[in-house]
């Protein structure tokens, strides 16, 4: 009973923060822009968040986080609009939606597909939020007992999981994480104040800033790649209004359980480092295919094939915040940016956050709910606006993105140095894409690197330089053991792959 009343008190407090006019407004701005960039293929959530990042300097930290988070889950809604109507997923996590969504659109059922997308997303998101509210306090209770060795072990596990699970080559992922860490070394040493990797350049003493790096690797490089690698897309033109969106009774019933299953799968994969919404949506689709009574229908415009992945990716979008907010360990590049935003505002993410910045914590969670309601409103009655948006020509849009990229940073930072960093990391980002190196892993390493080093050195200092401390402490030993098994497993499957060829 105590737990329940506490939860309700937290909900009330969170709502009082999230419903403040300024926070409400930024929540709206966030989800609106999120849907906007989600609809437009070629700009992802990371690009949009990096563009908006400088603006959050002027905001109260809660408002800033609410807006950035809104962009993040808003893109999942917007991404599926493009996936259904033009068969081009606006975001990777909506790629699965295109498999059944586009055939439905060709059958003239685009409206229904969009409606189910919005409602499944909403239900999935809500379940994710609910789990976050229930589990975060429990995790925080445990996490308060963690020492530096455990934190280091958790980060190792997070990074190993991110590099072995997330699809592309484990070696490439690992290399990018380490490269990110190496870039993070630049600047003054946290303990001794020694200059590291500054090569005598004064401007490098403060280290390389998160924002210019993100803007380079995700903003500038993304624009360059999409302009230099352009392919034409075809639209399925059809009138979409509220009436055409209403599903038949049978379609509604068929989408109900897939939605719930998808939400469950998504919630689980969202919390794991390295998996996130994209893998969650693929998993949910796979499960539907296995459990379907007529599996041959999937892939040819089955409503279940939309409901499950959409519920999954939105649930995962929300539960991804659980490790980020309770442990301070981001599971993906976007979550790493959220952590970056908190640090810039002087908030240390981690188990103490819930106690020291309860307004940020509960305000953000409740804003997710408001944001999801706003998204439902934006996506059902206002769908026509987004459909028209797909016609905005990219050749007008990308110069505008470039201007926002340069101007935002120049005005906020007031110096040319940051622009050079954007330029340099833009070039590096383009080469990463060309060589098939995952840029998201780079960012994860860049943000986690300094935290890892801090905990690594602290744990060793406490143990008097004894490396065995990481395996003598039971919890840290178990976590490192799991990480080790993951490496072995991916090594074996990689080897098998090579031998087969």
């Amino acid at each position, binding site marked *: 009973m105590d737990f329940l009343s506490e939860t309700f008190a937290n909900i009330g407090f969170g709502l009082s923060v999230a419903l403040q006019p300024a926070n409400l407004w930024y929540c709206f701005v966030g989800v609106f822009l999120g849907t906007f960039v989600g609809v437009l293929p070629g700009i992802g959530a990371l690009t949009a968040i990096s563009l908006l990042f400088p*603006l959050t300097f*002027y905001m109260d930290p809660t408002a800033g986080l609410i807006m950035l988070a809104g962009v993040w889950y808003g893109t999942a809604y917007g991404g599926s609009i493009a996936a259904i109507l033009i068969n081009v997923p606006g975001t990777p996590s909506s790629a699965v939606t295109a498999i059944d969504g586009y055939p439905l659109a060709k059958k003239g059922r685009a409206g229904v597909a969009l409606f189910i997308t919005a409602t499944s997303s909403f239900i999935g998101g809500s379940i994710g939020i609910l789990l976050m509210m229930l589990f975060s306090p429990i995790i925080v209770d445990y996490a308060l007992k963690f020492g530096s060795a455990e934190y280091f072990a958790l980060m190792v596990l997070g990074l190993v999981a991110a590099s072995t699970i997330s699809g592309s*080559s484990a*070696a*490439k992922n*690992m*290399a990018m994480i*380490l*490269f990110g*860490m*190496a870039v993070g*070394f630049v600047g003054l*040493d946290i*303990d*001794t104040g*020694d200059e*590291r*990797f500054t090569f005598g350049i004064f401007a490098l003493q403060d280290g390389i800033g998160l924002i210019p790096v993100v803007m380079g690797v995700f903003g*500038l490089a993304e*624009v*360059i*790649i999409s*302009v*230099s*690698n*352009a392919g034409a897309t075809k639209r399925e033109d059809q009138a979409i209004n509220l009436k055409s969106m209403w599903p038949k009774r049978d379609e509604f019933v068929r989408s109900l359980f897939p939605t719930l299953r998808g939400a469950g799968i998504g919630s689980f994969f969202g919390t794991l480092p390295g998996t996130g919404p994209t893998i969650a949506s693929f998993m949910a689709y796979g499960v539907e295919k296995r459990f379907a009574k007529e599996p041959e229908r999937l892939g040819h415009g089955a409503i279940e094939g939309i409901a499950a992945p959409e519920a999954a990716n939105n649930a995962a979008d929300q539960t991804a915040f659980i490790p980020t907010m309770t442990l301070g360990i981001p599971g993906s590049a976007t979550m790493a940016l959220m952590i970056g935003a908190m640090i810039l505002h002087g908030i240390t993410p981690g188990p103490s956050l819930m106690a020291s910045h309860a307004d940020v914590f509960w305000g953000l969670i409740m804003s997710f709910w408001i944001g999801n309601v706003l998204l439902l409103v934006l996506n059902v009655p206002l769908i026509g606006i987004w459909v028209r948006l797909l016609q905005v*020509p*990219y*050749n*007008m849009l*990308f*110069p*505008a993105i*470039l*201007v926002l990229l*340069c*101007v935002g940073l*120049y*005005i906020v930072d007031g110096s*040319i140095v940051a*622009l*050079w960093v*954007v*330029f340099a990391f*833009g*070039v590096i980002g*383009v080469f990463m*894409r*060309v*060589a*098939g190196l995952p840029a998201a892993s780079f960012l994860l390493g860049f943000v986690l*690197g300094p935290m890892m*080093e801090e905990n*690594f*050195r602290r744990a*060793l200092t406490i143990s008097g*330089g004894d490396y065995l401390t990481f395996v003598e402490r039971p919890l840290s030993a178990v976590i490192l053991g799991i990480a080790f098994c993951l490496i072995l497993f991916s090594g074996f499957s*990689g080897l098998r792959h*090579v031998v087969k*060829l």
Partner: protein
Amino acid sequence: MRWIAGIDVLTGLVIAGFGIGVSTYAYAKFPTSGFDDLGPGLFPLLVGILLTCSGIVIGVQGALKNAEALHLTWSRAFIILFGILSFIGVVSWFGLVPAIGILVVISSLASAEYIGFVKSCALAVFLCLFVYLIFSLGLGQHVEYFTWLGA
């Protein structure tokens, strides 16, 4: 199995080389006595060594299996980068408005379907207004729209 030096071999070499650079720098600048010195050089040394290893793995895997490199129209990429360089060059000498203008006019040239000089100028004017609305009116920032030689 084809033994052609593909993009992955090159990538592996670059990463391994970078890793060697990082660990050498860390070791040269902060001579660690083995791994029991907990100073500023230890972690970079470890990361550099692991980076070298992963570079070698990527290179070897690439030698065994040739990966496709993403093909780009490089001229377009260079035009955009040149646009950014122009912005950096112009903004501190002449202010934000000329810098936005030159960035938009140059980078528009990169598009597969060029919008034309007049339209790109119009877009630049629109974006200047947009920036004024957001940063000056909205956020109350002091912005140098025009200046002469950085004065």
